[in-house]
């Protein structure tokens, strides 16, 4: 299983509908300071069910929606879709392609979809947890946090390993 495509629209600095086709293997994301690289990582965390706005460097929920620029108005919602290639059946769903979508409106309304079927946030979070994806599974390391694993106490570290096992 791998991350086939990411579609971002209205999420943080992605004012324009943006599609990123990822290849299996090693992809490097590069660009100047402030261009939006870590925002891509945030988009992936967010669509996978991240609930703490602090973990997305925000202070209020609507911080994930494009706030506008000097030339552009703010947008009304943020939407991210994660397209996973599931031809190896890694995800416990009978689709060879699984699309997870999350939408958040300024009104505070949220929408969650798995393969275009509405679901709850919980369903997405559980799907991700069952398949060992996300920050707890070491699959996402945020900027400035690489040596965080060295800072935990021996006991905390055991808990982390227990979950990983």
């Amino acid at each position, binding site marked *: 299983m791998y991350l086939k495509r990411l579609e971002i629209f209205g999420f943080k600095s992605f004012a324009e509908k943006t599609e990123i086709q*990822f*290849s299996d293997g090693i992809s490097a994301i*590069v660009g100047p300071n402030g261009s939006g690289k870590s925002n891509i990582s945030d988009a992936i965390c967010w669509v996978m069910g991240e609930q703490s706005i602090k973990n997305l460097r925000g202070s209020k929920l609507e911080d994930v929606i494009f706030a*506008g620029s000097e030339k552009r108005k703010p947008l009304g919602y943020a939407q991210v879709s994660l397209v996973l290639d599931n031809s190896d059946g890694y995800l416990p769903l009978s689709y060879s392609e699984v699309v997870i979508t999350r939408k958040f409106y300024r009104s505070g309304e949220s929408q969650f979809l798995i393969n275009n079927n509405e679901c709850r946030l919980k369903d997405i979070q559980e799907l991700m947890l069952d398949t060992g*994806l996300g920050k707890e599974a070491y699959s996402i*390391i945020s900027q400035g946090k690489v040596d965080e694993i060295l800072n935990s106490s021996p006991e905390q570290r055991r808990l982390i390993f227990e979950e990983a096992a």
Partner: protein
Amino acid sequence: EKNFLETISKVKANFSLIYGQLFEGGRAELVLTDEDNPLEAGIEIIAQPPGKKQQHLSLLSGGERALTAIALLFAILRVKKSPFSILDEIDASLDEANVRRFADFLKKHAPSGQYIIITHQKATMSAADALYGVTMEEAGVSKIISVKFDEEGREAV
């Protein structure tokens, strides 16, 4: 439980191996704080860069700590496969020589799986199969340009 002990022992073996590869020497280990009580014990990290004396992790340099953490990360990934990993500037503290070692390791020995790695380092970029440039031609608005490296050479998409 048995699963946990097995996982720990595999990560332990891989951590020592990968550390030695990334540091081109030295030694590091995961150590249980209580060998007689493995299911309750905490997990200590012992690290000793080549030629140096074993010391508290906190005394290691920024770059040494980053490389040690990278070794542990890869050890875990090798044992507990993750379909994809998103790594945001994990090479930021590394000097030129260490970035090259990291990039080589990534290219040749990284645990199988998909890696999406954000970086400013040229050596890390050269280890990638595909490059995605993020720019803000228009201030405040992110745009992506994708460049794939394949057998025939670069090909802008």
